[in-house]
């Protein structure tokens, strides 16, 4: 299993397109940081125009923590696509390129192959989130400095003291890893059904987009199923920037995401174990 995992990681990180995801994360982060450097104060004044009438807010409002929060809100919509690019390619890409049949003529079990694909996708996801944390948080703090963070919500705003922020980011990134691992498991499941690489990537995004719309639409018919959709829970990281932190809701989200991940993975193993390799 270790051998298989090492080989899977070697293949992922030897492939040039793997680094496109890291490049995209870096580019989007830089663009937002540059925009905030040039016009950030206008953005903050606009965002706080209602609040400023009632409160006198002083200090470094446009700080690295706020910029990171803005970057996370923008990027965590796109990260599923970047995760799907690798995880969705894991089985279907091998089938499409014909290497799957060569792999499976070797004395390895299909269960171990799926697990190696999943763990390597998980490691890739962790590295991508760590990269995002590094580029967004570290660079934003360098460029914009520290300060108390204002979290503007639709019906309230939360002020978080700067000494109370870093653990929240740590927890938020950990939660993001779990959420993206669920996306990776979904991609691998769709990858097991397909024999071409692009299908699972598009299908994953299709599922995420449709379910996200259902999670966000305030219609009674969707309200019944919303708590059971994983897309309702992948934004649970935002809870760490509330005061008080809604631990019960976050725990519920973690349980739902873990169950979905196990479900996707179990279905993949069951299906792939009986699949005829005709590609």
């Amino acid at each position: 299993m270790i051998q298989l995992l090492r080989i899977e990681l070697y293949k992922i990180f030897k492939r040039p397109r793997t680094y496109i995801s890291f490049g995209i994360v870096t580019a989007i982060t830089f663009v937002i940081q540059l925009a905030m450097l040039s016009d950030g104060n206008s953005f903050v004044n606009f965002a706080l125009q209602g609040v400023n009438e009632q409160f006198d807010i002083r200090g470094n409002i446009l700080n690295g923590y706020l910029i990171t929060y803005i970057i996370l809100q923008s990027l965590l919509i796109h990260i599923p696509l970047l995760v799907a690019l690798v995880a969705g390619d894991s089985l279907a890409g091998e089938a499409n390129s014909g290497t799957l049949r060569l792999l499976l003529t070797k004395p390895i079990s299909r269960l171990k192959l799926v697990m190696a694909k999943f763990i390597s996708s998980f490691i890739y996801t962790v590295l991508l989130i760590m990269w995002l944390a590094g580029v967004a948080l570290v660079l934003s703090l360098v460029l914009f400095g520290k300060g108390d963070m204002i979290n503007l919500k639709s019906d309230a705003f939360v002020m978080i003291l700067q000494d109370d922020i870093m653990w929240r980011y740590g927890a938020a990134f950990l939660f993001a890893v779990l959420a993206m691992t669920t996306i990776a498991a979904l991609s691998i499941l769709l990858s097991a059904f397909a024999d071409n690489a692009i299908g699972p990537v598009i299908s994953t995004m299709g599922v995420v987009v449709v379910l996200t719309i259902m999670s966000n639409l305030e219609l009674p018919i969707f309200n019944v199923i919303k708590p059971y959709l994983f897309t309702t829970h992948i934004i649970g990281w935002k809870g760490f920037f509330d005061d008080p932190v809604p631990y019960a809701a976050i725990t519920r989200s973690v349980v739902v995401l873990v169950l979905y991940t196990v479900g996707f993975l179990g279905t993949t193993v069951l299906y792939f174990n009986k699949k005829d390799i005709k590609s």
Partner: protein
Amino acid sequence: MKPILEVNALTKSFKTFKAVDNLSFTIQHGEVYGFLGQNGAGKSTTMRMLLGLIFPDSGTISINGYEFNNGRRHLLKSIGAIIERPDMYGYLSGWDNLKIFATLSDSKITKDRLYEVLEIVGLKGREKDKFKAYSQGMKQRLGIAIAMAHNPDLLILDEPTNGLDPQGIAEIRALIVSLSRDHGKTILVSSHLLHEVEQMATSMLIIHKGKKVSDGRLSDLMNPDETLIEVNIRPNNDLAQLLSGSVWGQLTVSQTEEQIVLKMNPKIVPELNRWLVDNRIDVLSISSRHSFEAYFLNITNDTTTANRAI
């Protein structure tokens, strides 16, 4: 000694299409076993079932006496295979591909062994090149290197000369013969090209529409009376008249002023030669070849298959 591979009543359908129908055959150690059939006859499906890529609906596969389903992983250690094209990771070097797939077969495989197989297939010195930069022939040879790296008893090669130029075909053919003769490998090699298999195999299995239609040693499959005898002569205007008035005319398949082709038993070639000399026809050369193509077409002909299926 138990056969290295024993297949019994193997059957596989895809929806309503029966790809392999009650197929049984046995391969003995050291054989080069040709697996012949037209495109779509069921060769690749059979080979995929032998390797556990496709699951049979019914039937059994035994390797060295052990049933495949009871020890797939263990038994795959004694098999090396190329199925259809030898597709690998184009962005990796030949060496990386060889190491990855060889390690999956045997984690204790040594660097020396990898260089040894590269030497055997004639790729030593080119192992650092990217796989995508390899020619089709080099890809096939790397595929064979991967198949034999862990020193398996049985090599399963599905259409190994597909897509190769004539020189590449000759190289791969020579390699396969050498693997059997010099390295003692048992080889199951499939092709839809009769001429190819005929030149490599010691035994032959022919399938048609998923069913076995013929099986046995090549020499036993051939009817000696069906041998084609080709006689090259100095141009002779009287040839047609001479032939028509003799017993040899009935055996003649084709004739020109310079060549006669007869279908006959090679044992009576001396009599033919004597008759030609007696009739003042100058013989330049006499050669024989089995009419394997005629044999193959005959047994895979739809109208006769039902009667000949074993």
